[in-house]
């Protein structure tokens, strides 16, 4: 095999491995398991390549099915009930935050800002930010509690911490534009649409945070040894 052909084959193998790894990632396969399987598959495909067997001939064209079969065959560990737990944790975390925010900011607390001329708008902004902060802390605490025994939980919560304020900012801009376009209507349908828009944006942020948290990290590919399980026959 010439050097160029060898390079092409290696590139093809790496492309296949990347695609297979993405599928495993989407399936919630643990990072250490993915690293092990990827390393094993690389050895297999490379060895076959030196005998002139193209990697696609081994894996077939449906890489997603190949990845699924391999993960099922290997009986790999997956993140258990991750979505349900994450969503439940964030929702439960959000409820006390919202209630607390309502009582603390709207009912019991007025912010004295004598040095600000436009008192009402600054006061409003402080209230909004206070609400958002309490809500955010509640959501993050809920997510942290829900995922405390899951691998990379800290990364997931950190990713959420970064994503939610951005999502909140986007949600405010989008709903403001929407409200302005609809002439600040208080019609239930408009309010529902605005609430749904905010929910969708927050959901997208959670999805992005999850994807971001489970992305491959350079240097983390060293596989942990997995002890073989004995079966009684």
């Amino acid at each position, binding site marked *: 095999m010439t050097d160029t052909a060898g390079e092409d084959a290696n590139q093809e193998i790496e492309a296949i491995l990347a695609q297979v790894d993405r599928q495993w990632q989407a399936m919630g396969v643990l990072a250490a398991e993915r690293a092990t399987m990827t390393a094993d598959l690389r*050895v297999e495909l*490379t*060895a076959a390549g030196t005998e002139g067997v193209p990697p696609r001939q081994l*894996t077939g064209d449906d890489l997603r099915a190949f990845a699924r079969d391999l993960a099922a*065959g*290997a009986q790999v560990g997956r993140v258990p009930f991750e979505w349900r737990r994450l969503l439940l944790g964030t929702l439960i975390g959000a409820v006390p935050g919202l209630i607390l925010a309502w009582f603390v900011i709207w009912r019991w607390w007025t912010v004295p800002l004598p040095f600000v001329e436009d008192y009402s708008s600054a006061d409003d902004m402080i209230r909004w930010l206070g609400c958002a902060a309490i809500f955010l802390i509640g959501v993050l605490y809920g997510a942290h509690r829900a995922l405390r025994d899951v691998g990379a939980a800290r990364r997931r919560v950190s990713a959420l911490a970064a994503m939610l304020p951005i999502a909140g900012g986007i949600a405010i801009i989008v709903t403001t534009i929407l409200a302005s376009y609809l002439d600040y209507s208080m019609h239930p349908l408009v309010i529902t649409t605005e609430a749904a828009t905010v929910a969708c944006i927050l959901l997208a942020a959670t999805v992005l945070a999850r994807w971001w948290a489970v992305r491959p990290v350079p240097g983390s590919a060293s596989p942990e040894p997995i002890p073989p399980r004995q079966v009684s026959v």
Partner: protein
Amino acid sequence: MIAPGPEAAERRTQLLRGVLDMCILALLDQAPAHGYELVRRLNAAGFDTVGYGTAYPLLTRMRRLGLVADELHASPSGPDRKVYALTESGRQALASWTTEWTRFVEMTNATLTNIASSTPTMEKGL
């Protein structure tokens, strides 16, 4: 007589699913092999529909179960290869599965033979 169709193919797939791990163990018991060499041997043994995409996940599973162990062997013509061989647990499992399979085949054959020999009588009776 019912012509072989998709149902026959499905039945063959299901039968294959039930015995493929046993056949892989048997082939590795004859001689250790690397992944695609094992597929070649399976194809040569008559399992011509079995591809790497089927055999490799199974091999990975059996390695997890401790039935098969892998070892990196240096290759003179290229990169290292992962060669799979049976473990002691694998040998025990193969012996047990072979006994079970033989018993199952005998039972099935006996049942089919009984049906074949009793069918004309039933027709006469009807």
